[in-house]
């Protein structure tokens, strides 16, 4: 036996021997399977391409950012195995998103054997910026020109041979989603990828980059193939790269980079701008060579805009679309308006009589004022909801921006500031915020002028008046009547603006830069959200302003002005409200509606225009309200459900009438109407109804609008507005009545 010999440790290279480490890395690299990185802009179809080439099933999406981390596919070609590493989309290697940082880090750390750069053929110039950065890496590169089918649809045909020659790397054209050309990707990548022609920067930049590359050549800790890229990024002062180099002990390199930057800046050179501009210029030059005769086929948006913004057709198309909106509104919503104003109000009144029968005064207020007054106003919620849905469709589809563009042109033609279209279009919703919107106009004269014509723009509060009269007297041409009111309001506003401009306010119109977004099909959820919010705002006014006003009118209708009557026991004509209205009514006799009921409804309309229908409901339905009998819960529910089903059927059946031709004659058919519409059809003729609508459109706006004008421009302007609008309304209504009674039966 011999004593055991002590075990001698094997000689190990010292840990700080960088040369030995580099040798080990190189040995491992030689022995490992080759790796290729798939790089490209977001949403160019990288993952689809990888799936098509490798037969994998990585997740694909039709939007940017589907790949948020690198993913790997292993594939074989004969005896050769290749790892394709799918990187997140990156517009550049100057990272400012996590995805770009992941891609840049992989390029620096993965020691790739080759790069596969996927480009969108339809957006070549933009995609080439990244390609030119990749060429700063000394790594063999192959290009895949993907989505060539979509590019050709846009009229873009890329000459791949020219592209390949300019970049010095092979190019394969593919449609990844259809596996077209994908068979050539792998052979090209494995056999033909090469280090291409890099961008030549200005002499000063090239010199500074050379200094830094020389510095890096003395280091073994930075990948040699990335030296040029790193040098340029340091000159660009890439903060993430500087942070990484500082953390890995490259302070001397950073100092050298700072020295070079200072030297360049002392020469008046901003390295980041210079480097980026050189790349963009090169990308542009290559794109022009590779796409010599782009025929710039029109996109759908451009085709539609040729019609929508046509100098002659633009305005008629706009008017036709507005008419279509009103026709849709009528066809779909009218049955529901009649449902609420008729059967549902009857059921609510029946229940109120049953519940409040023991409190007569309260019952009278609810059945005689609130239900016919507020209920009538609320019955127009379906109309407004459909209208707002249609308007949201026009806004979200991108069409309203075109309408604004057309209006802008018209504004300037009238000598108005181009921006005046914003408050005027807002005025279709509500005049009050529209008056405040005149603040966006620079000159006071413009602000005053636009505020003075704004009330002629028909706000949504006036719509219920148009709708109930149209249903009563023009059931087959209701949409045309409403459309005419909106058009008349605009015409009067523009004529008035034109006249003012030529009398006291000289034109100094200015252009306005408008955003014209591409057309798109709006999301239903968003449309519904906008429409619901606006309709809810209208409903809120019904339970505040309208409720308070109808309560006051009810009190005035209950105060007797003749002996022999007591409070709330007086015929409407003998009430304080009736007497005052009658005293004023001769003023309106030449307009065709000289009775106290029609006149009386206009008075509370000063508070809010929708109150006109509420008051008409109170006046004309008061007699019916007195005859309402109690209704049981079950009976009421059955009655309401049955009427609702009928309304749904009528609404669906009426859809085809959206494109029907109008008839302006008075209704002679037995179309079912709401009680108020029936009452109005007996009280008005078609001519007097049109006159009434014109007066409602043009007469003094609500007190809130007057208050807004006073707050913005002073009391004098507010009173002048009240006065001239009353005058214009009277004259216009008179003219319409005189003409209409000759033309209409």
């Amino acid at each position: 036996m011999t004593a055991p010999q002590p075990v001698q440790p094997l000689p190990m290279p010292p840990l700080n021997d960088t040369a030995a480490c580099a040798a080990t890395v190189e040995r491992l690299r030689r022995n490992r399977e080759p790796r290729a990185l798939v790089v490209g802009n977001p949403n160019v179809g990288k993952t689809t391409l990888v799936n098509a080439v490798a037969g994998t099933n990585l997740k694909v999406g039709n939007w940017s950012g589907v790949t948020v981390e690198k993913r790997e596919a292993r594939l074989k070609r004969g005896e050769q195995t290749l790892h394709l590493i799918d990187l997140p989309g990156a517009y550049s290697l100057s990272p400012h998103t996590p995805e770009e940082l992941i891609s840049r880090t992989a390029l620096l750390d993965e020691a790739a054997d080759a790069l596969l750069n996927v480009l969108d053929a339809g957006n070549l110039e933009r995609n080439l910026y990244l390609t030119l950065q990749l060429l700063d890496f000394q790594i063999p590169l192959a290009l895949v020109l993907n989505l060539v089918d979509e590019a050709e649809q846009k009229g873009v045909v890329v000459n791949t041979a020219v592209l390949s020659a300019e970049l010095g790397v092979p190019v394969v054209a593919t449609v990844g989603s259809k596996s077209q050309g994908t068979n050539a990707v792998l052979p090209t990548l494995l056999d033909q990828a090469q280090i291409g022609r890099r961008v030549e920067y200005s002499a000063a930049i090239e010199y500074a980059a050379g200094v830094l590359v020389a510095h890096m050549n003395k280091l073994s800790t930075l990948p040699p193939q990335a030296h040029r890229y790193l040098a340029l990024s340091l000159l660009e002062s890439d903060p993430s790269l500087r942070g990484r180099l500082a953390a890995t002990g490259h302070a001397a390199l950073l100092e050298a980079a700072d020295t070079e930057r200072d030297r360049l800046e002392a020469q008046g050179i901003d390295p980041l701008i210079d480097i980026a501009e050189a790349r963009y210029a090169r990308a542009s030059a290559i794109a022009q060579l590779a796409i010599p005769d782009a025929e710039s086929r029109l996109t759908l948006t451009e085709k539609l805009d040729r019609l929508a913004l046509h100098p002659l057709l633009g305005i008629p198309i706009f008017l036709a679309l507005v008419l279509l909106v009103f026709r849709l509104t009528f066809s779909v919503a009218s049955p529901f308006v009649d449902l609420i104003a008729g059967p549902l109000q009857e059921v609510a009144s029946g229940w109120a009589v049953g519940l409040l029968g023991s409190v007569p005064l309260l019952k009278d207020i609810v059945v005689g004022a609130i239900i016919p007054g507020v209920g009538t106003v609320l019955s127009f919620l379906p109309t407004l909801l459909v209208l707002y849905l249609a308007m949201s469709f026009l806004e979200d589809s991108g069409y309203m921006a075109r309408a604004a563009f057309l209006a802008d042109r018209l504004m300037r033609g009238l000598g108005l500031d181009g921006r005046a279209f914003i408050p005027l279009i807002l005025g279709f919703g509500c005049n009050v915020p529209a008056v405040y919107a005149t603040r966006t106009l620079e000159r006071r004269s413009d602000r005053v002028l636009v505020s003075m014509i704004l009330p002629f723009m028909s706000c949504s509060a006036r719509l219920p008046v148009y709708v109930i009269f149209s249903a009563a007297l023009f059931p087959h041409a209701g949409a045309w009547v409403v459309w005419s009111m909106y058009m008349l309001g605009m015409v009067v506003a523009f004529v008035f603006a034109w006249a003012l401009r030529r009398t006291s306010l000289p034109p100094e119109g200015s252009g306005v830069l408008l955003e014209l977004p591409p057309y798109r099909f709006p999301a239903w959820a968003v449309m519904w959200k906008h429409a619901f919010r606006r309709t809810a705002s209208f409903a809120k006014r019904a339970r505040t302003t309208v409720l308070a006003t109808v309560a006051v009118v009810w009190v005035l209708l209950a105060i007797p002005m003749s002996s022999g009557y007591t409070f709330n026991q007086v015929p409407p004509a003998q009430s304080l409200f009736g007497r005052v209205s009658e005293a004023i009514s001769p003023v309106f006799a030449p307009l065709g509606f000289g009775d106290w009921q029609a006149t009386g409804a206009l008075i509370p309309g000063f508070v809010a225009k929708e109150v006109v229908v509420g008051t008409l409901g109170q006046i004309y339905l008061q007699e019916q309200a007195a005859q309402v009998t109690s209704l049981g819960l079950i009976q009421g529910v059955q009655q309401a459900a049955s009427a609702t089903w009928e309304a749904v059927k009528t609404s669906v059946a009426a859809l085809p009438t959206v494109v029907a031709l109008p008839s302006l004659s008075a209704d002679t058919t037995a179309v079912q109407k709401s009680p108020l519409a029936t009452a109005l059809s007996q009280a008005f003729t078609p001519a007097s109804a049109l006159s009434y609508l014109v007066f409602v459109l043009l007469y003094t706006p609500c007190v809130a609008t007057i208050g807004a004008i006073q707050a913005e421009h002073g009391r004098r302007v507010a009173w002048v507005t009240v006065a001239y609008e009353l005058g214009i309304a009277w004259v216009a209504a008179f003219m319409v009545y005189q003409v209409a009674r000759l033309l209409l039966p």
Partner: protein
Amino acid sequence: MSLPLKTILYSLSGTPRTLDELARELASSPQALEGMLQTLYAGGYVQQAEQGQGACACNGCSLKSMCRNFGEETPPFHLLRLTTKGERYLSAR
């Protein structure tokens, strides 16, 4: 068509603009400009002019109660403006 980055910076000086406005003013396309703006953004020459800040505040706007850009939804119009670095770059040239 590629544009010198300086041209973009000049267009943004003084007035914040959206990508579409810039594209129209410079007779370029939003797609072509987007990459250049990202370069300038990454380099710290331009920034997003966020609503509620500075001259782009919604608070002074009379339309905010009706504007879908205000508050609840992602603003569809991204305004871009120069940073101090961008202004300094232009003033040095």
